[in-house]
Structure formats: C-alpha cells, structure tokens
C-alpha cells in the first residue's frame, strides 16, 4: 500500500506483455506491480486485464475451480485469479453464493456439478458450522462434547461421500481456526475440553477423513490464521456488515495457500533448487574475503546464512535436487566444502556444481541437461539482480528468486510460495538425495580414474610447435581471421602484419600442428606473444574448433612457459576478451592456475602466471616436437 502515484509504465509493460501473449514477462510484470502496491485496487486492475485478454493466454494451464463457503468468499476471487496466473494457471471460478455449500453438494442437479469443476474448495468457518463449540460453548459445557464431535465427523464423512458420488474433482477442505476469544478466558487451556482443544479434535477428525478419501485434502486454514494472527486475519466490522469475516488484505494469503495446491495438482511442483554461493549460502564474497572471511556460523549474520542452509538441507531431505551455479574459482569452493566448519551443506548434497565464470543461464542449462530435467522445473536463487535478470531474459521458464538484502529473510522468501510443495512423499523422495549422491560419486570416480586423459592418450597425438615461417604464414593469418571459439582476443591479422612481427626479436609467433591416430590435421593453432619488461605477454592464442577439448592448449602454454623462462621472463600474462562465440576459451587461464588480475566493465579479464611458483607443465598425454632453430632469418 502506497500513496505514490499510479505506476503507469509498469502497468503498460504488463498489459503489453499480456497482449503479445508473453506469459512469462506478463507474470513478472504483474509481480512487480504487486511489489509496488499489493492492495485491492492493484489486484482489481490485474484481474480485469487478465479477464479482458483471456484469449491471449493459450499456454496457461486451465483449471475450473468452485468456491463453496459458509461466508461471503466472493472477495477471494480476484486474488485467486491473479495468484493463479502468477503460477501459470488460468482459472475459471464458480461461486454459488455463500451458505449454499450443503445444497450444492447434495443436489445432483446443482450448478456445482453442471460446472464440472477440477477442484472444489470447501471453506467453512468453524463458527458457522459448529456453534456448539464456538458460540454456545458455555451452554454445551454441561453436556460434554463427545456427541458433538462424533456428529461432526459423521456429517463431514457423509458430505464427502455424497460429493464423490457426483464428482471426481479434487476436494480441498479448510480445517478450522480456533475462536479469537475463549469463553472461559485463561481457564480454556487448563481443562480437557477447552475451545481450542475441541477445535484441534475437529481438525484431527478432518485429517483422518482426508487420509481415508482419495483426492480429498485438508487446507491448513488454522495454520494460516495463526501465522498471520487472528486479530489481523478477521475484520469484525465486515463480518457483521457484509458477512465477509476475512480482512481484505489477508485474502491474497488465503488465495496463495490454495494456489499451492493448484500448483501441486497441475504437476508444477519444482524439482530442483539451484543456488548461488556468495551472499547466498554464506555472507561475503569468497574470492575477495577468502575462506576465513566469509560469514557463516553461530553469530549474526553468519547465523542467518546457517539457518538458510538448514532449510535447504530440509528440501534435500524432501527429495528436492540441489545444485550450485556460482561465479567463483572451483578450487576455492571445493576448499570451503572440505574445510569450512560452518558448512551444514556438504559437497555430496549437491547433484551438480556449475562453478565457473560463464553465464548463469548456461549453468542452468547444463544442470538441467546433466540431471535430465526441464529448466521449467528449476528454481534459481541469487542475491544479484543482474544475474536474476540474465536468467529471466535467457530462460524465462525458470522460476527465479531474488534474495532480499537481509539474510534473515532468506528462508521466508524461499519458502513463501510453496514452490516445492507436493501432495505426496514417497520412499523414493526420501532416497532421491542418496541416489544422486551415488551417481555423483560414480562420476567423480570416473574423473579420478583419468577418463579424460585416457581419452587424450588414446588419440596418440603428436603436437608440433614451430615458429611461424614463410610456408605457414598464409595458414596462420587465415586462422586469425576465421577462428572464433577458442580464441582469447579474436584480433584479426593480415599476412603482412604477421611478417612485420616475425622480424621483431620481441615477438614470439608459434604455430601448432597436430597429428593423431586418424591422420594429420595440419596447422590448427597459433600463439603470438611479446616479451616486454620481464614478462611474456600473450596477445593471440587460438585453436581450430576441430581439435579443441583435447588438452592441446596445455602443451601450448607449457611451451610458452619454457620459452619465457629461457628468455628470463618471470611471468606470463594474457587477457580474455569476451565475444558471443568464444565460450570454450573463457576458462583457459583459470584452468591453468593463472591468477585473475582484473576485469573491465566490458567483461575483459587479465590473467598472470608467476613462473617461479606454478609454471604450466608438459602434459603426458601427447608427444611434443619443437623446432629449436626458428629465427627471423627463416623469412629470407
């Protein structure tokens, strides 16, 4: 609720998205509108536009919902339509008018059955159904309540059976909230048959009925009322004036509770939670603050992050698959998992880890691929609005959650919409985490057994690293012009430009040729690096896409290290200029333990390797030949 002027542009964006049938954007814009003002006028506006443009919502799941109640529940219709839409569900509502639920259920010719609903909601206030316990409690005390409770159970059983004779729809029954005030005051909690306790017994009976009758579920109305507080939940003024006991600003929460069931019943339960790491699973930035500097533990704010991890762990125990999408150094993250004592979540709880500097949308795609699930089953959680936006733009069907600033609000934010809620919990759900853990361990074992290197070895590669010379000149210039994927800077050169460089003693121009068991690939790679003030500066580093993913780049870098050492350079430097196509090369320096120096606003990164500490070593999966005699004189 705000007194700010109407956010007309937000509304315009919502309507425009709706008009062009862009369900995902329209839902996001509607959420933004509700963040601005979640009052009734906003809900009215959104609901009306949804109904006006109902013909352009083809991709939503249709659902026919009947609302039966003992009170005026018409007011929940608009919030219910809006919240359903936010979950990709297009509902058609049947409202027979309050107090009609008995007739509607018992009359085979009622409007309810003619409507042939998918879901029927039975919302009855305890005070309407059981005056003996709510209103006339003092009069009934002398009689005891056993007969009353038994009659309640029989009546509801009878109502459910009658309904089932005429309809196969799913039946959602509100359970009962205790009265706001207890007629015996503070004595109510002291005796066996206090009002609160009697209502609990009604709810137990109802739960038993739901277990016995297929497709009948209890909606925990009592829990909902107590979460929000009965004093806020009810509007006694409207109870009397309009027979509308629930306060208007609580209706969206009631609608939200029903929509959780709609989601579960239409198969929209999310299967996988993908989390960011920095300022999500812990406070702070690992790459800047270091493992000792991140916040996670018993003291605020670390305690709030720990609490968040505990709730995520609970999701894991419920059978939700966990995964990580983080921009970090994989080795740093592994270190947190192995040695940070605050980590409640362990490496084995995550079925998939995407820790690298690539786009988060790419990570999510890869996670979906590896887990063999659709991206629409993923919930992605991040604190960074830019990452959320990137994912929303690239993969609109992913559900995103932008975490608030305060970590103590993370748990509520993650769980409020019941995205992972399901109406069953099987032995398989309980074991799912274990199953993924086993799968993950098998994969790690394969990796440890050197599967990839085994593959490299099986290729029987012979790599020749040679200074660029007259005979290779044309091919080398051509590669600078054509190579897009495995190319760190994507700078294009002409032959004459290369010739100029070949004349200079500061430049090192090296071609890479590869032969393998299948034949000779010829020249497939090029490096150009320049000696400058004690460092070797790599300007061009490229490989033809025919031979990427074979570990050849390791040999090329090892060669540069050797050359640099020979000329007395202490470091090797390089940079990566991002292009839409050079994804495969982005982790080149990181994989070879270069240190990241800086990143510009355009996404260009600079890297450095100290040769005294960790030079790149020759890989043992290929044979290398180098020419020792190439000099600028070769040109002549």
């Amino acid at each position, binding site marked *: *609720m705000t*007194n700010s*002027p*109407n956010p007309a542009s937000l509304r315009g964006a919502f309507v425009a998205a709706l008009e062009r049938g862009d369900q995902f954007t329209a839902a996001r814009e509607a959420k933004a509108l509700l963040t601005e003002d979640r*009052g*009734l*006028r*906003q809900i*009215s*506006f959104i609901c*009306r536009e949804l109904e006006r443009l109902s013909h352009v919502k083809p991709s939503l799941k249709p659902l026919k919902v009947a609302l039966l109640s003992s009170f005026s529940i*018409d*007011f929940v219709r608009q919030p219910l339509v809006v919240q359903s839409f936010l979950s990709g569900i297009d509902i058609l509502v049947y409202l027979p008018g309050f107090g009609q639920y008995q007739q509607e259920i018992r009359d085979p010719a009622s409007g309810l059955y003619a409507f042939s609903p998918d879901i029927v909601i039975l919302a009855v206030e305890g005070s309407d159904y059981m005056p003996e316990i709510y209103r006339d409690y003092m009069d009934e005390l002398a009689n005891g309540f056993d007969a009353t409770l038994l009659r309640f159970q029989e009546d509801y059983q009878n109502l459910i059976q009658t309904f089932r004779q005429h309809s196969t729809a799913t039946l959602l029954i509100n359970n009962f909230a205790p009265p706001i005030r207890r007629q015996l005051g503070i004595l109510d909690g002291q005796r066996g048959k206090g009002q609160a306790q009697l209502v609990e017994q009604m709810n137990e009976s109802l739960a038993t009925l739901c277990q016995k009758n297929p497709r009948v579920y209890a909606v925990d109305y009592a829990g909902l009322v107590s979460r929000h507080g009965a004093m806020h939940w009810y509007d006694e*003024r*409207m109870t*009397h*004036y*309009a027979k*509308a006991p629930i306060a*208007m*600003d609580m209706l969206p929460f009631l609608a939200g509770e029903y929509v959780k069931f709609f989601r579960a019943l239409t198969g929209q339960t999310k299967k996988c939670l993908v989390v960011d790491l920095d300022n999500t699973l812990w406070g702070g930035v690992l790459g800047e603050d270091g493992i000792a500097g991140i916040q996670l533990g018993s003291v605020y704010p670390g305690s709030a992050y720990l609490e968040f991890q505990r709730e995520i762990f609970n999701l894991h125990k419920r059978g939700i698959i966990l995964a990580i999408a983080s921009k970090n150094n994989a080795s740093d993250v592994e270190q947190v998992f192995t040695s940070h004592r605050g980590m409640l979540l362990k490496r084995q709880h995550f079925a998939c880890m995407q820790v690298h500097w690539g786009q988060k949308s790419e990570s999510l795609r890869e996670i979906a691929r590896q887990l063999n699930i659709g991206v629409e089953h993923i919930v992605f959680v991040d604190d960074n609005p830019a990452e959320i936006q990137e994912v929303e733009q690239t993969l609109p069907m992913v559900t995103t959650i932008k975490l608030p600033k305060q970590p103590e609000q993370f748990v509520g934010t993650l769980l409020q919409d019941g995205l992972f809620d399901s109406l069953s919990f099987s032995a398989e759900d309980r074991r799912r985490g274990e199953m993924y853990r086993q799968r993950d361990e098998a994969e790690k074992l394969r990796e440890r057994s050197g599967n990839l290197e085994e593959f490299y070895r099986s290729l029987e590669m012979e790599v020749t690293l040679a200074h660029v010379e007259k005979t290779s000149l044309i091919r080398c210039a051509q590669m600078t012009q054509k190579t897009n994927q495995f190319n760190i800077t994507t700078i294009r050169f002409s032959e004459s430009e290369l010739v100029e460089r070949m004349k200079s003693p500061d430049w090192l121009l090296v071609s890479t040729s590869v032969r393998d068991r299948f034949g000779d690939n010829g020249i497939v790679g090029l490096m150009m690096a320049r000696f400058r003030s004690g460092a070797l500066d790599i300007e061009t580093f490229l490989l033809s896409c025919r031979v990427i993913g074979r570990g050849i780049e390791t040999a090329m870098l090892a060669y540069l290290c050797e050359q640099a050492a020979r000329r007395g350079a202490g470091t090797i430097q390089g940079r990566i200029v991002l292009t839409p196509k050079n994804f495969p090369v982005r982790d080149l320096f990181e994989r070879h333990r270069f240190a990241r120096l800086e990143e510009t606003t355009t996404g260009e990164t600079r890297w450095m390797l100290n040769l005294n500490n960790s030079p790149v070593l020759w890989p043992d999966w290929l044979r290398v030949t180098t020419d020792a005699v190439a000099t600028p004189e070769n040109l002549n």
Partner: protein
Amino acid sequence: MEDQVKQVIADVLALDAKAIDEFTVKDSTASWDSLNHINLIVALEQEFQVSFDVSEIESMQSYSEILETLGRKLHG
C-alpha cells in the same frame, strides 16, 4: 487527493478515471454493486491508510460523498 480517489474508483469499478465526476453515483453505475462497494471502501482504506466505520461505509454512495467522508477523515 481527488485524482487519487478517481484512480482508485477507476481501478475497482473498471471505469475511466477521466469520466468520474460529481455525477458518478452508486445507483447509476452498473459496476458499483454491493460487492464492489465493499471492494471500493477497502481499496480506499488501503490507499489512504484510514478505516471507515459502518455508518461511513453506508454514507459513501457517490464520488462526492466519498470525497466528503474521506476529507473529514483525513483533515478532521
């Protein structure tokens, strides 16, 4: 305040805000039924952070009466 009231009425009753004036009364506005009357009252309460009692709810039968009642509420 007047524009804000018009905007709330427009949103809840599906009217054009520009068409709302002293001739906008409950009895001659099709969408202003008893259900929407409650919606309108609550929307005004949310918008202006006030609470009307039942006699006030019943007195606000037109745009003019809404302005009058709300004005009294806000400015005493």
